[in-house]
């Protein structure tokens, strides 16, 4: 019935549904690719935005992940490799009222596109960045990326990559990002809530999504997704709540000075009151959280946090520009072309 409600694929106002946001294009990812879940969750989110599809724009670079815009029944640009943040910046500055989304991959955003991402983050335009991190170059068939772990054997690193990987959230912190969060394809419910939070934040939302590339990097995130281990390895952040993890929240994190340490809540030695309480507005704690980045394949290691690390309100770039425009109109009035062309010093020839 939603088809009746739509004209040329663009639904009219009224209660839209996820499927109204699916384009007519056949989705072309490998069977089992994590991108499918993310697509589904984003389409599920769309109606909650409460804006018409034509007010929404998805902008991507190049990569498997970057094919995303083709599958959304909104406006979209499949740009060039790494430049989506810059394309989005030009659009958002000139059309601040639009809901602008950037979909990018670990190579697109952090390798060739690194400069644009960090500049977007510091400028803080109200754009939602979804970084599909599969720790590999998927589209080009399996070379290591800036997030591939050191020693990772790929087509271009037969002896193991010597690159020390980026920690995307730490990099984003260093670039002064105002909203930083992490989710994963294998936990759609949590992903959905993170997408909502990202959409809700005014300013650049940076959401890193662990995404499994089943063909070229299968299981990269199994330490956090495998039922058998994930309780011990992943920690879900809740604003104002203590940092708990493990089966039945048996463990917690406390801070001894600056050193986060794992405590066993059943040991009787520690209670929840001793734990590190999460505060989304604390940049310094957010830094500590982002640096919980050890490899988690071995036991007893610090867990990997998921959730909102930092959510800080700060004026958006486009708003400040709009204010300057109004101010300048205030001051000079709407410019008169004649005055401008004439300038200060003229003479007349008879």
């Amino acid at each position, binding site marked *: 019935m939603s088809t009746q409600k739509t*004209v*040329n*694929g*663009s639904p*009219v106002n009224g209660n839209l549904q996820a499927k109204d946001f699916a384009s007519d*294009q056949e989705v072309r990812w490998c069977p089992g690719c994590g991108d499918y879940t993310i697509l589904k969750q984003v389409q599920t989110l769309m109606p909650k935005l409460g804006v018409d*599809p*034509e*007010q929404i*724009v*998805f*902008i991507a670079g*190049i990569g498997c992940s970057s094919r995303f*815009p*083709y599958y*959304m*029944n*909104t*406006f*979209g*640009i*499949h*740009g*060039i490799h790494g*430049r989506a943040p*810059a*394309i*989005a*910046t*030009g*659009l*958002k*500055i*000139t*059309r601040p*009222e*639009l809901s602008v989304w950037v979909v990018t991959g670990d190579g697109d955003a952090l390798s060739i596109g690194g*400069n*644009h991402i960090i*500049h977007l983050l510091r400028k803080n335009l109200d754009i939602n960045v979804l970084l599909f991190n599969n720790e590999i170059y998927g589209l080009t068939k399996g070379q290591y990326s800036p997030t591939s772990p050191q020693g990772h054997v790929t087509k271009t690193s037969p002896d193991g990559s010597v690159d020390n990987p980026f920690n995307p959230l730490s990099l984003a912190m260093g670039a002064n990002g105002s909203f930083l969060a992490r989710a994963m394809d294998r936990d759609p419910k949590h992903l959905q809530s993170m997408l909502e939070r990202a959409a809700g934040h005014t300013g650049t939302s940076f959401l890193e999504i662990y995404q499994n590339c089943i063909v070229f990097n299968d299981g990269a995130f199994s330490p956090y997704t495998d039922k058998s281990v994930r309780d011990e390895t992943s920690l879900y952040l809740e604003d104002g709540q203590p940092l708990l993890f493990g089966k039945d929240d048996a463990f917690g994190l406390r801070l001894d000075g600056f050193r986060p340490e794992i405590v066993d809540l059943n040991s009787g030695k520690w209670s929840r009151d001793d734990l590190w309480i999460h505060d989304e507005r604390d940049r310094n704690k957010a830094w500590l959280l982002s640096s919980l980045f050890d490899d988690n394949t071995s036991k007893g290691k610090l867990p990997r946090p998921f959730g909102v690390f930092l959510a800080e309100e700060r004026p958006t770039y486009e708003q400040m*520009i709009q204010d*300057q*425009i109004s101010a*300048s*109109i205030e*001051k000079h*009035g*709407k*410019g008169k*072309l004649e005055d*401008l*062309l*004439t*300038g200060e*010093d*003229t*003479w*007349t*020839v*008879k």
Partner: protein
Amino acid sequence: MSIVEKQKKEVTIRFAGDSGDGIQLTGSQFTSTTALSGNDLSTFPDYPAEIRAPAGTVAGVSGFQIHFGSKAIYTPGDMCDVLVVMNAAALKANLKFLKPGGIIIANTDGFGKKDLSLAKYAPNESPIQDAKASGYIVIEIDVTKMTRESLKDTGLPVKAIDRSKNMFVLGVLYWLFSRPLDSTIQFLKRKFAKKPQIAEANIKALNDGFTYAIATELFSERYTVDAAPIDPGKYRNITGNDAIVLGIAAVAKNSGLPVFLGSYPITPASEILQGLSSLKHYGVTTFQAEDEIAAITSAIGASFGGSLGITSSSGPGVALKSEAIGLATMLELPLVILNVQRAGPSTGLPTKTEQSDLLQAFYGRAGEAPVAVLSASSPADCFEVTYEACRIAVEHMIPVMLLTDGYIANGAEPWKLPDIPEIKPIDPGYEKARENGQDGAPFLPYKRDENLVRPWAIPGTKGVAHRIGGLEKDHETGNISYDPDNHQMMTEMREKKRDLIADFIPGQQMDEGNESGKLLVVGWGSTYGSIKSAVSDARDEGHDVSFIHLRYLNPFPKNLGSILQGFDKVLVPEINRGQLSKILKEKYLIPVEGFNRVKGIPLSVSELKDKITELCTT
């Protein structure tokens, strides 16, 4: 002894001194007065390299040249009749520009031991004597002493007084060329409205310089240059970069089409970004991007949103934009790329001029990526060409490359103000919304009109949501298509669309001479002035030479081929190694003679004239 009054048809004066000597201001004041006196004129500032070099050194010399006359003037002049030097370094750097037997007005105070050594003259050298010896007329004035003398009662500190030296010299020159002082006096009153004491001092120095020239009979001759035949109207002086700024503002204001400039500073294009950044109330938004790639891609994003995206840079920056220009040709969105060329390759000579990015403009992209290419011929011409570039970009949904260069970007000339109602607004013609129910047919973003132009459907418009990208697209739906025949078709379409622009531009006019004959000179861009002067000089000498100057480079005007056919010889002067020559040869299979110099400076009129006469007489 009595002073001889002489009439002159044209005069070139070069002011030179230390960056601190206020040379540019002196020059611009002489320019306004000259303009008001009805002369035609052309000026060029000759700044030192990018940053301030030590005072008194040759590297620190700042120059300003003005060429004016009672006849039409097209260039700032190769060589000058009068050279004003405030110190030794200025002489060292500029003597080569003075005509044999020309006049040097020298501030003797700038020729002390220290000045000479800073200017790297040998201790035993005395340049002023040497200049006299080599037949120049040298007028020596201790400007510092005289100015201090003139202003000793103002009670101003010496430092402040010395800042009026340039006005004293200007006074002398006003006398020498029989100019009124009032416009400069008015200017000084305006400029120092808040500091009347300073205004007074400068005005006094100006007057005293004038009277000093009379009293001391500095000169044996005095000159008058009558008004030139200039078509009536209101004029202002303008540089190329400023004219571009105004052209863009005109598009925004006149068409109600929002303009977005994404740019990254670079010499000699920075003034465009700078100028537009204070025109927010004219509907222009500027964005200083992190690099050239962000600059152009942000402009593409803005164009997708319904603004006219523009990006400005110079050669090296435009090279970085190559990939993104390719994207724009695929997206078929309006985009204007301004390339203020400089001497290359690579960093080259950033402050010097060259025309060597023409082939980059034509071919500097991966794949078959056709764009339109235009060029401006003079500072004032930049206004109209910029407007044209924007019109073509919007009406044909295509990237347009506009080429200017450092010479016209910084050079200035009188510009007759356009009649604003005459300027035709540009219609973005956005695709209309498709309301519920009405017209069930799906929106086809790549369905073209008779000129092969696709619709501009912008976000926020109901019923036309669509996705575009750099992958080859189906010729109607715009969806990804790997179909071989579709790729062939789309490749031809993009090319044909660019070529069809020829139906919407004026035919090529002759600038000088007949439609056929012995020699045709073909020019483009900033060489207009030099070529025009050389050709008209040659014609005055009775040579059968014609001249066309191309504004539209790709596509060419439809009648260009037939014009070329009409001549025995074709000469193409360029400040490069023959780039337009290559294109003309390839397109029309005719032999072309090149006149090519790459010295970072405008073409020499006399050299070029010799070449023309040679070709006309063989």
